[in-house]
């Protein structure tokens, strides 16, 4: 007689975010994976590289998104060789969309593809459940995002610097972690620009503070 949570799919409950700035993107995520109400991994890395300059933020089924990201990474690796240059963020996003859309009935996966390329600089592409592709200056996803739409609308300004973007993402993910039971742990951040990717972790005790009562 197995416990309920062992029979439940492993999900990245999740809060994920990506913001464009002039010269690159900032992406962020929480680190909780849950199976029902049990936290299967409290230090999960949901920011997954697709190429040296393009990442995807994963939400939904952990298995689905990992398998698909692996596939897209392989495909883009091959494209780099056959096209003789780094894939564009737009191309990576369309490859991802193609898989998510054509298999939409069998998948539970929503991602944000974000990165930098020579052609269009920093770009963020949101691909929700169902496989729609939309480029946005700021995108958020996962169950935690529902708690912070108001905060995002109130605080987002176009034209922020990369430091302001990092603070914005950290604050937003932190607020979502506080309210969403399916999000938690640390906040992982990455900045992607012409120089590549720089990753950071904001430890749980260092998350930006807010009203707690």
């Amino acid at each position, binding site marked *: 007689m197995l416990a309920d949570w062992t029979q439940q799919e492993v999900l990245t409950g999740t809060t994920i975010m990506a913001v464009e700035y002039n010269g690159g993107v900032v992406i962020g995520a929480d680190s909780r994976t849950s199976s029902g109400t049990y936290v299967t991994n409290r230090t999960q890395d949901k920011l997954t590289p697709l190429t040296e300059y393009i990442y995807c933020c994963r939400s939904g089924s952990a298995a689905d998104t990992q398998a698909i990201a692996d*596939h897209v990474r392989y*495909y883009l690796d091959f494209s780099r060789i056959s096209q003789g240059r780094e894939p564009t963020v737009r191309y990576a996003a*369309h490859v991802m969309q*193609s*898989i998510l*859309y*054509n*298999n*939409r*009935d*069998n998948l539970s996966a929503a991602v944000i593809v974000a990165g930098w390329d020579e052609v269009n600089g920093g770009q963020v592409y*949101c691909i*929700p*459940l*169902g*496989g*729609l*592709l*939309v480029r*946005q200056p700021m995108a958020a996803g996962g169950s935690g995002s*529902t708690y912070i*739409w108001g905060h995002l609308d109130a605080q987002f300004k176009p034209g922020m610097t990369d430091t302001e973007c990092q603070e914005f993402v950290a604050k937003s993910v932190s607020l979502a972690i506080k309210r969403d039971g399916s999000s938690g742990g640390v906040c992982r951040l990455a900045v992607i620009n012409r120089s590549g990717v720089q990753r950071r972790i904001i430890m749980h005790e260092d998350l930006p503070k807010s009203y707690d009562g």
Partner: protein
Amino acid sequence: MSASFYTKPANNGNAGVAMETSWDSNPGRQRTLQPITTGASVLAIKYNAGVIMVADTLGSYGSLAKFRSIPRVLRVNDATVAAASGDLADMQFLNTVVENHAIDEEIHEHGIAYSPASLHSWLTRVMYNRRSRINPLWNTYIVAGTEAGQPFLGYVNMLGVAFKEDCLATGFGSHLCLGLLREALDAAGGYAGLTEETATSALEACLRVLYYRDCRAYNQYQLANVPVAKPAQVSGPHFLQSDWSVAKLVKHYTE
């Protein structure tokens, strides 16, 4: 995974539309397909020198107004525009196929381009075919343009039901706005009596009603105008004014 996202007609007899879906290889499965990110109403009306179509720019994720700048109007060529409501991922898929077809026509260099009637007809076949395989494209399309020098307006939905009319609406619009559009046509004695300005303001009034009364409507929209004598133009985003002054007259719900 197949390396071709686009197949030319010579390679694929089905004119580029994916006929094999994940469901087809699993015929034992039941499917409940549901729309995820959706677009609301599309409205359109003929006028004396063409046809005008409007659609707001909102992509709703259930009740969440998630994507507020999604273009739902597709300019196919100088004489044809189309707009969709329903699942926006399916809309993006179909729009890509249509755009690829338009490129095909150019490649063939036979001087024939998609006319609104031919697009409407093709769309009807595709939608009906998908419905008959219990795997619908969850959309309602309105096709508008100039056909043989006359304004054209056609409707196709996810069941493959198709018809042509002087005024059309999808979704909530078909309940709240079709009556208003028909009244405008009646007052003018038919579309030949309707000017571009009157048609535009009738559509705007309808968008306003939808913004007041449809939870999934939005106050930013695109407008497509296809005059018979000139190329199609898609403009936007336009912002909808709304009048809430009646709120000042209302206090409490009882005396």
